[in-house]
C-alpha cells in the first residue's frame, strides 16, 4: 500500500485509500482528562498531523512499560473531527482490566502515548456523506461513545438530519455526557434523546428499572418504513437483544450496523 508514516492521505476515489489506516505509530500527548462518570474519563490527546476521522471510527493506543512491555487497545473516538489535531477518547474502567484503570485513574497529563489510526470504516456516520436519511442511535452503557461522535459531528456541521438516540444505562451515575445530550435535544433541530435505566431509578421515575422493551423501541425509534440508518453499540448482550428486536420489527438487517465490546478486554 502507498500510505507512509506522516504523509497526508491523498484524496482519490478508491475506497481503499479512503479507509486505509495510516501505517505506523505516532507519539501523542495527553493534554487533558475529564471525569465523565465515577468509572469513565475522557482523555484529550494532542496528535500532531492527525489526518481527521469519520465519526464512529476508533483509534489504537499503545502503552509501553518501563521494561519495554507494550499493551495495545482500541478505543472509540468520542470527538467529532475538527481539523485541530486534537482527539478525545472516553475510556470506561474495566474491573481488573490491564489498561483501562491506568488510563482512567493514573495516566499523567503531559505524558506520551503512541496512537495509530483512525481505524474502521463501517460503523461510521459522516454528515458530508450520510445527511438526510433518519438515524437511530442505540447505546448500551459506554457504547454511547462512538454515537456521541456522530451526534457532535451533526451539531458541528449544522446538520438537521433527524436523529433519535436511546441510551440504556444501569443507573443515573453511569450516564455519559448527560448534560451535553440534554443540550443537543434542547436545540430543536431534530435531535431527540431518551435514557432508560436498567438497575435503579429515582423514586419519582415514571418507569421502573428494566431493559429496553420492544414497545419502547418501536415508540422511540423510527418505523422501519422510513428506512433509517441504525447504529447499535454496547455490550454484546445489549447488541444481540436490540438488533434482534429491530429485525423482528421489520428493519432491514443491512441497515443495522453494530459494534460490540466483549465481556473482557480493557
Amino acid at each position, binding site marked *: 500500500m502507498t500510505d507512509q508514516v506522516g504523509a497526508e492521505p491523498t484524496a482519490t476515489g478508491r475506497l481503499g485509500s479512503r*479507509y*486505509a489506516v495510516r501505517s505506523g505509530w505516532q507519539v501523542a500527548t495527553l493534554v487533558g482528562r475529564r471525569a465523565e462518570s465515577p468509572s469513565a474519563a475522557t482523555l484529550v490527546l494532542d496528535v500532531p498531523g492527525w489526518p481527521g476521522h469519520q465519526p464512529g471510527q476508533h483509534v489504537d493506543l499503545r502503552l509501553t512499560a518501563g521494561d519495554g512491555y507494550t499493551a495495545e487497545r482500541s478505543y472509540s473516538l468520542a470527538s467529532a473531527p475538527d481539523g485541530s489535531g486534537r482527539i478525545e477518547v472516553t475510556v470506561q474502567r474495566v474491573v481488573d482490566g490491564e489498561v483501562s484503570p*491506568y488510563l482512567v485513574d493514573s*495516566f499523567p497529563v503531559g505524558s506520551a*502515548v503512541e496512537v495509530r489510526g483512525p481505524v474502521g470504516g463501517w460503523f461510521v456516520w459522516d454528515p458530508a456523506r450520510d445527511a438526510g436519511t433518519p438515524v437511530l442511535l442505540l447505546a448500551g452503557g459506554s457504547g454511547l461513545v462512538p454515537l456521541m461522535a456522530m451526534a457532535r459531528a451533526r451539531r458541528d456541521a449544522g446538520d438537521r438530519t433527524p436523529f433519535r438516540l436511546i441510551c440504556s444505562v444501569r443507573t443515573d451515575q453511569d450516564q455519559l455526557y448527560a448534560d451535553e445530550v440534554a443540550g443537543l435535544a434542547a436545540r430543536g433541530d431534530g435531535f431527540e434523546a431518551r435514557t432508560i435505566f436498567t438497575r435503579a431509578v429515582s423514586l419519582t421515575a415514571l418507569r421502573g428499572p428494566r431493559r429496553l422493551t420492544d414497545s419502547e423501541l418501536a415508540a422511540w425509534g423510527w418505523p422501519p418504513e422510513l428506512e433509517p440508518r441504525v447504529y447499535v453499540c454496547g455490550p454484546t448482550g445489549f447488541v444481540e437483544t436490540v438488533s434482534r428486536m429491530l429485525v423482528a420489527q421489520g428493519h432491514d*438487517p*443491512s441497515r443495522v450496523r453494530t459494534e*460490540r465490546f466483549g465481556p*473482557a478486554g480493557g
Partner: protein
Amino acid sequence: MTEPSEVPPALTPGFHGRPRPDGVALPPGQYVEDGFPVLSAGPTPNVGAATWSLTVTTEAGASTSWTWADLMALPQETPTVDIHCVTRWSKFGTRWKGVSLDVLLADVESTADFAMVGSYGGYTTNLPVADLLGGKAWIAHTFDGKPLHPEHGGPARLLVPHLYFWKSAKWVRSLTLMPTDKPGFWERLGYHDLGDPWREQRYQGD
C-alpha cells in the same frame, strides 16, 4: 548520548501492565482472553441447520453444494486451536468439531489461488486458497462439545485459526474461487488481505 536500543522508550510513566505470560505463544500486540467475545458488523442472522447449505463455485462457474446432512455425513475432525482476533484478544485451546476444507475441496476442479468466502447476512472475506488447504481450515459446527451458538456463527462457520479471526467467517454459505485476489468486507474497509497475526498484519500496508 546513548546507544540506540531495541527496547522502545518507556513512554507511559507508571504503566506496568499485567505479569507477562510465561512460555505462552502470543502474537505481537495480543493479550490472553478467557471469555469468547462476539464481534460482527450487523445483526446475527437466524439460519437453521435445515435450511443451511454451503456452495463452492469455481472460476469456471461450476458449483457444488452440501446440505447440513451432507456435511454431517463427511469425515469429522476435532481441532483444538488458538484463535487471535484483530481487536487484540487471543484465546488458547479452543475445541471445535467440523469438516476439513481438504475434504470439501478435494474434488473441485480449479487452479485459482484465491477464494471469497460469503456468509448469510452478506459478510464476505478473501483468503488465499493455500491458507484453506493442508489441514489449516475447517467448516466448524460444534464448539466445546455443543452446537455452535448463532452469536459465534452457528450453525456453521469457517475456522482458519492461523489467521486473524475475521477471516473465519461466521454463518458461512459460499466459497467462490478467484484467479486474482479481491477484497472482502473488512478488507475493503482497510483491513489486511491476508491477516497473519504472527506478522501483525492488521491493516492494509502492514
